[in-house]
Each structure stands twice: as C-alpha cells, then as structure tokens.
C-alpha cells in the first residue's frame, strides 16, 4: 500500500503543486493525468503484493480457513452443497 500511495502522491504533487505549468497531456506519463494515476498506483500495489506473497510464509491455517469460508457463500459438506440459511448467526 505504501508503494502505491507514494507513487500516486508523488505524481499528483508534482503536477498539481510542484510544477503545475507542466500539467498537460504531452507531459503526462503515457497520457495519464494526475486524476487517473491512482490506477497505476493500484497496479504497482498488486505486483508488489504478488511478489511479497511468493517470498513470505503462508498465513496461519485458521486465516486460510477464514478466507476459504468467506470465498463460498454456501456451506460445503461432504458430497453435497448445503445453503447457509441462518444469516443471523453472527459469524
């Protein structure tokens, strides 16, 4: 997140405050304005996140179970799918 926000903030600050005279399409990176550069920041976040996830240990099993449980809105039982109807159960 820090990587993406640093890149995005730096780009915006440069064109909006530091050098506003250069804030023209001809000077933008690939024609992307400061208003749209957040998308590139997000992509940078994604790439870094992928790299970090490959070189760091997996989260604990309970967290993996949490993610697995959230991914599927239906409860899985052996051999059949059971719909979770009691949504008022807190968690």
């Amino acid at each position, binding site marked *: *997140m820090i990587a*993406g*926000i640093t890149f*995005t903030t730096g780009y*915006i600050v440069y064109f*909006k405050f530091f050098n506003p005279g250069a804030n023209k*399409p001809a000077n*933008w990176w*690939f*024609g*992307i*304005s400061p*208003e*749209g*550069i*957040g*998308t*590139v*920041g*997000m992509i940078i*976040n*994604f790439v*870094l*996140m*992928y790299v*970090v*996830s490959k070189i*760091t*240990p*997996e*989260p*604990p099993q309970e*967290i*993996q179970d*949490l*993610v697995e*449980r*959230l*991914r599927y*809105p239906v409860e899985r039982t052996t051999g059949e799918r059971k719909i*979770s*109807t009691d*949504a*008022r*159960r*807190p*968690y």
Partner: protein
Amino acid sequence: MSITTWTWILVGVTFAIYIIVAIRSRAVSTGAFYAAERTIHPVLNGMATGADWMSAASFISMAGLISFMGRDGSMYLMGWTGGYVLLAMLLAPYLRKYGKFTVPEFIGDRYYSQSARIVSLVCAIFISFTYVAGQMRGVGVVFSRFLNVPINTGVVIGMCIVFFYAVLGGMKGVTYTQVAQYCILIIAYMIPAIYISIMLTNNPVPAFGFGSSISAGGAEILQDASTQGRYLLDVLDGIHKDLGFNEYTSGVRPKIDIFFIVVALMVGTAGLPHVIIRFFTVPRIRDARASAGWALFFIVLLYTAAPAVAAFARTNFIKTVHNVHYDHAPQWFKNWESTGLIAWVDKNGDGIMQYGPGKAMTGKPKYTGKTGKLGQAMVSNIITNGPNEIYIDRDIMVLANPEIARLPNWIIALVAAGGLAAALSTAAGLLLVISASISHDLMKGVLMPSMSEKGELLWARCGAAGAVVIAGLFGIFPPGFVAQVVAFAFGLAGLHPFFLPSLWEFLTKKPTSMEQ
C-alpha cells in the same frame, strides 16, 4: 407563495419526517447501532445506499460538470456507477458472510494484526472526515442560496438534524432516514428533468430525450426555429462549433486517460467505507449482492438523467443568453446574478451578452454592490481579454434549472430540499463510520476489549456526537483545499488495504500475508 416560503415549508416537512423516522428507529443494542440488527430489506438497503452515496456533488455539481466537459464528463458517470458493479461482484457478499460490523475489524482478523486494524481505522476516519467537510459546507450553501440564511447558520441547522437521527438511531435510524431522503432527492431531481425533457423534445424520459430531436415547442423555447426536428446533441455540437468550443460530443482528454480515471473512480467508489458498511445490514448473504444491484438501479435513475439535464441546460442557456441584449435577459439570469453564481461584464460596451471560450474574469465574481448603466451587477475582478463576457458557475445548471424551465415555485423549492437530503444522507453515513471506528475498533477492539455492550453503545453515541460537532466545524471553517482533499480521500479509499487482497484472493485462491 414565494420560493423562499415554499422552501421553508418543504425543508421543514422533510426535516420533520427525518425526526419522526429517527424516533421510531431508536437503536438499543450495538447490533442495531452498527448494523441495524441485519434486518434491512435489500430494496430498502439499495435506496439507503443510493442516498448514502449520492451526495451534494452528485445532486448539484455533476450535471454542471458534464454540461461544461461534454463527452469527457461521462467518466464520472461510468466510474461512480461502475464501482457498484465491483461491490456487487467482489465485495458485498463476502463481507456479509464475514458477518461482523466494520471494515477495520475484518482487516484486523484477516491480517491477524492489531496494527493493521489501527491503520485501517485511521484511513476510514481520514476518508470520512475529509468527505464530510464538503457535505456540511454544501448544507450551509444550500441554506444560504434558497433560504437567505447565513452559511454557518445553515451548517448548524444541518448538524442538529444529523445529530438527532445519527446519535439516537445509529445505523438503524440512519438507514430508514436515508430511504426517506432518497425518495425526496430523486423526486426533486427528476421532476424538473422530466418537465424540461417534455418541453424540449416531447419525451418524458430524460435519458431518451437526451437522444431525441427538438420538438416544435422546444424550438420556440430555444428561440430558434431551425432547431426543430434536429437531434439535441447535433444542435449542441453546432452551437459549440459556432462559439469556438470543441464539439460537445468530442471531448479533449486522451482515451487512455479517460480509461484510467474511470478505473480509479470505480475502485475508489468500491472502497468507500460508508458504502461498504451498508452491506452489513441485510439479513442474508445473497441479499448483499441483491442490494448492491438495487443500489445501482436507484443510482442509475439519477445518473442517466444527469447528462440529459446537462445537455438541456447547456443548450437552453446558450440559446437564451448568448447574443441577447441584457434588457431581454431571462428573469432567472437576473435572479441568480446576486448569488455569485452568474455574472456579466460588458467588455465591448454594446449591451449584448456574449458567451464563448475562456474565462470572462479572474476567479469568482466579487460584487461591488453597484450596478452598471443597464442594471447589471458590477464586479471588481480583473477582466480578461477574451471574447467571453459571462461567468457561469457549474452548480447553476441544476440549481437554476427549474427557473430556466419556468417551473412553479414549489418545484424550485423542491430542489433545495433534494440538495439538503443528498448532503445530509451522505454526511450521516460518514459520521457512522467515524463513530463505529472509534467505539468498536479503537475502544472495544484495541484499548478496552472487556468493555460491556452498554459501554460500547455509549461510546458509539458519544463518537457520533463528537464526529457531528467536528464535521460541523469543518463546514464552518472549511480547509481551503477541500476539493483536492476529497479527491485524495477517494484515492486513499481506492488503495484501502482491504480491497486489494480481497480481489487478490478472489483471483488466486491463496491468502496473502501481511508483510508488504
């Protein structure tokens, strides 16, 4: 009855509705205060989400933005509605399945880290406070424009109303109030839009009237018989070319820039905390996705009318004002001259109002209090050298629209009530995020985990009250860079740590760890 009297009546009635709803929706548990006891029907949640999302910016400013930007303004329409597609597909049902109360709580559990929870709640509070500053200021501006009340007094009145239903009812009170506010804002927006669409094109659906041809009655209103039978957008393109503007339908931004801005707005919208928490309030997991769909439907009702309102207002404005002698200027022009939203400087002394590219003067009009030889309000601004003699604020495209169309006073007053509904509904949602972040995430989650439910509810109410007061102060003493900070808040929401790993997990089926 005058516009001011009608406005007081309609605003008074709508405020009474909000207070009655708040009294009947009192929250007596944390489940009710944070998540409305998860009893909100998806359709009602969709309406509340629509009102929560559509602030004064959507109601007042967006049509004006589009009327000046033309095709490029469509990036706001696509981005802000596209975010709901992301919410429905990638976030809402998974959050509802998680089942707790707040986004920082999810972050804390998912990353098994109190630090992550604290970072997330700081982000949520920062986003919400910067956003709510603009809303409270918008409430004050609407009061000053329509009710001749000082802006700060309007802010205080708005604070009192929001204080009542946010502190008393929490999410439950805010939700049902937002449903009422949605009804008011959509009626207030659509009635003038439908009326003008019928006047200009004989089509009662504004979105279809946008693509229709000018009727005989429309040509008469535009004071140009040659427009009859021609498509509205063709007429507008022709007008733009004649005046030296780019064609209305062509746009100036590179397409790659439009694409990246749309994506940024989509992701930012999907990451806004006051929108995300709305999906904790529905009974079932499938209801979360359904309510996102309903929210999109209710938002689209306004968002498809906005470009039509923009085009109608732009065409009407240029045709009835450009090259018209000031003595024959429409009455709405003279009515709004004193508000600072429109001004004319007779650069060449011919008494005829000329509109064109470029600024008529530097900055916003600063009136001297004197009038010119034709009775126009004089300004002390530096006059620019270009041909354009008219300063026009973008907000006037919605605020003055009913007057431009010569609608009855009660409809003009309804626009004020609708603008207030839009601003107050969003402000309430943002204040709830701040309240929940303080009471549930900071106090209960980090500092005082053994706090009782009664204690937590007290902290929630105090947090809401404190947030209302601080938001009101932001409205009375706004930071000079509100617009830029709101844009930064959107950017921060889009990079909100929650969104990316959820999307990542959806794509790769492997949880990520926190070290990044």
